[in-house]
């Protein structure tokens, strides 16, 4: 008799649930007294209203800029296009502190824009602190991300449909309606929810550019509870509120937009027939230059760090670089394994067991992960492992784990559709051949998964590489990542060196994003 093992995806889902529940219960248990959630009621309401408004606006603007940018990039071929695509991937993983400085270097009171206006004869002070600052920074970070996602989605339109469009003589409007809109409609709601959650959780950017304490997100309240009040119970409750809001949002969106079945051809390299349309040509040039004007200057301002690169290249830096790479590599491994397991469990439920509703639970998990405040969960997990592991080694385990978990929502989308493709194409064949487990993965999925896996790995690595979240809890002379080093220098007036380190972080992230782009664009 054969013992049937549960699917690895179910195990992963259970493990994630256990981690989350365990972490939060640990936080709740350490506090004997009742958490004082009611005491901050009005404050909480205000924070929630602000978080929601700013996240919704940021998301909307990111989409309004990102989607047209994706169309312009899809329609046009130009020298340096591949470079631009990689840059789009890299912007998203810029560390927040670097973003704040980059945005202000351009749009700040003494920034490039202010200097330009002054040179043109405009006098008077202007300030972007408040909504403008938050929105600019968020759009700078995430419009490129949306553009990248949309571009990937547009590329999934089967080549046959492009030929039909050509043969039937579709106008640009009909191309949009029958080819582009269906994929947008399928991709955008999910992407919008993802972005909304990212913005909802935004912390350092909102504080630095918000201009007032009312411009704070729930994450600030959680940080406050954890670090200042040491009220772990309240931190856990606030974290649960955040998870609940995000779950509700994800579920609502899932309900409103049932995702049409994923298409199952491979990406086409076909030149879009609407590229020839004159009005679209003008529009695209406009969009491309507008995006260039908005996104390129902050990116370029980072080059100011170049002058001090030489002074930061020392043994400390080398060690931090190695540490960052090792941690990011481990985190990427974890993120890939988890995403793959979840995606294959979802596929099994869809294709073999015909339970698409149950499969959605697996699709939901990555978003839940995104909603969990990393500080709170890490603290909770730390409380659990504390009796068994030395604090210093706990960091080494928790750091890659948490960074890996944080990357799952971003890379899950690399695998899901591809696994479905493999399943729909070869599922029956491999079933008739009796392929199971490892061999099924090796023969049926590997050829199609190889490149997305590489792309997902690189992006997960880049995300972890620029992260300054968990490391703040565990870092030290023996465990220093590059962002940690950056903060350390910033803490002792060495602004120039911090800028140089920031530049180097962005360069590495850029290289990883470039790699990811190359891998995901290559033909299978």
């Amino acid at each position: 008799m054969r013992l049937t093992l549960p699917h690895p995806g179910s195990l992963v889902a259970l493990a994630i649930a256990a981690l989350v529940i365990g972490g939060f219960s640990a936080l709740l248990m350490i506090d004997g007294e009742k958490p004082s959630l009611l005491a901050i009621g009005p404050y909480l309401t205000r924070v929630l209203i602000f978080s929601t408004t700013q996240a919704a606006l940021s998301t909307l603007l990111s989409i309004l800029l990102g989607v047209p940018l994706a169309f312009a990039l899809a329609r046009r071929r130009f020298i340096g296009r591949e470079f631009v695509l990689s840059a789009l991937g890299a912007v998203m993983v810029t560390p927040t502190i670097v973003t704040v400085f980059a945005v202000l270097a351009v749009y700040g009171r003494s920034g490039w824009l202010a200097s330009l206006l002054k040179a043109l004869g405009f006098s008077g002070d202007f300030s972007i602190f408040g909504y403008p600052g938050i929105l600019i920074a968020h759009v700078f970070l995430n419009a490129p991300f949306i553009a990248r996602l949309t571009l990937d989605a547009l590329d999934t339109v089967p080549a046959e449909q492009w030929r039909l469009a050509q043969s039937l003589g579709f106008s640009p409007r009909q191309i949009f309606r029958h080819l582009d809109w269906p994929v947008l409609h399928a991709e955008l709601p999910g992407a919008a929810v993802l972005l909304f959650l990212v913005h909802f959780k935004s912390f350092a950017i909102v504080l630095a550019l918000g201009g007032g304490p009312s411009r704070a997100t729930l994450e600030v309240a959680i940080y406050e509870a954890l670090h200042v009040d040491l009220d772990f119970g309240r931190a856990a409750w606030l974290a649960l509120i955040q998870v609940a809001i995000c779950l509700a949002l994800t579920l609502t969106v899932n309900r409103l937009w049932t995702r049409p079945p994923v298409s199952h051809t491979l990406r086409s390299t076909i030149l879009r027939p609407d590229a020839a349309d004159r009005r679209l040509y003008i529009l695209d040039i406009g969009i491309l230059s507008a995006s260039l004007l908005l996104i390129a200057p902050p990116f370029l301002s980072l080059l100011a760090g170049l002058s001090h690169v030489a002074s930061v290249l020392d043994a400390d830096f080398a060690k931090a670089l190695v540490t960052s790479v090792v941690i990011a590599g481990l985190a990427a491994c974890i993120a890939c394994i988890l995403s793959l397991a979840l995606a294959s469990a979802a596929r099994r439920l869809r294709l073999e067991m015909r339970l698409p509703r149950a499969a959605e639970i697996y699709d939901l998990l990555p978003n839940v992960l995104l909603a969990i405040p990393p500080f709170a969960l890490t603290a909770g997990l730390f409380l659990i492992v504390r009796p068994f592991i030395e604090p210093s080694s706990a960091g080494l385990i928790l750091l890659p784990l948490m960074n890996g978990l944080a990357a799952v929502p971003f890379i899950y989308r690399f695998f899901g559709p591809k696994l479905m493709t493999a399943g729909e194409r070869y599922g029956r064949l491999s079933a008739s051949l009796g392929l199971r487990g490892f061999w099924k993965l090796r023969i049926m999925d590997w050829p199609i998964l190889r490149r997305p896996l590489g792309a997902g790995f690189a992006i997960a690595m880049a995300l972890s590489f620029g992260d300054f979240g968990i490391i703040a809890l565990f870092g030290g002379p023996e465990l220093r990542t590059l962002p940690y080093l950056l903060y350390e220098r910033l803490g002792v007036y060495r602004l120039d060196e911090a800028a140089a380190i920031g530049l180097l972080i962005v360069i590495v992230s850029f290289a990883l994003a470039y790699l990811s782009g190359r891998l995901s664009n290559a033909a299978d």
Partner: protein
Amino acid sequence: MFKRFLTTLAALVLATGFAHAQTKPVLTIYTYSSFAGKYGPAKTIKERFEAICNCEVNWVTAEDAGSLVGKLRLEGQSTKADVVLGLDMNQAAEAKSLKLFAPHDTQVSGLSLPIQWQDDTFVPYDWGYYAFVYNADKLPNPPKSLKELVENPNGPKVMLQDPRTSAPGLGLLLWMRKVYGDKADDAWAQLKPRIVTFTKGWSEAYGLFLKGEADMVMSYTTSPAYHETVEKKTNYKAASFSEGHYLHVELVGMTNTTKQAELAKKFMAFVLTEPFQSAIPETNWMMPAKNPPSGPPAVFKDVIQPTKSLLFTPEEVLQNRRAFIDGWLNATSR
């Protein structure tokens, strides 16, 4: 299997990290990151203490002073810390309530601190005054008092830190309370139009100030000394306020869970000796708690000398912080 892989890997990384001899007893000191960074005093202090203790000093860092207490609370009785260095006076009561600290049994006298020191748990190792720093080239006539800064509607724009997440942020909150008392919230409302933003920590605020985003930044009286000594720039100055300045004292304490009690005590005594104290000024940019016989450090000769120190006791801070923050939130969110 996966977990085993991780632990093995973690052990490997650890092994390379601590490859050097483990034969001597190890004294683990928790501190904040910039203290142990490239330009911080930790390296010098480690060398100097190891020269006399026949032990090894191991620094473990948290992001900032705020995270130090959080880290201790998380680790609880299982903490590996023998000594905790870098707590802010405003956190002292909270830190004590963790019941992790042991009495220091150190002779604390002859300090350069502007206040009497009586605490038997913590020893101050350096101090300074909070102050608003400005660029004299751009702001030739800085306000002469906190009231002038707050009440002049055409006054300079200021960059502040969030009191919920940062020590100087909390410092200003308390400073305002000392000057305005119960009217502090109204004062906040008055100042609000000229507050550029409240950042998460000192680093962001100071960086943004240097980038020209504000006319003044909440920092320390000793900040100009850095620009003068390292960058040879004399245009950054701290504004002297007539009401007095809020005092910032940094503390060190030993834990009661330590297995190296003797060593820890030895270190606590070492803190107020010349080898430790002389490492502080040009690395941590704070006043040493005990001046050498030759007087205050030369780098601080131009530092402004407030006429009056303002200070709440740690217990008062613990009691009122929430209420102060709520008041501030209300006043600045209006």
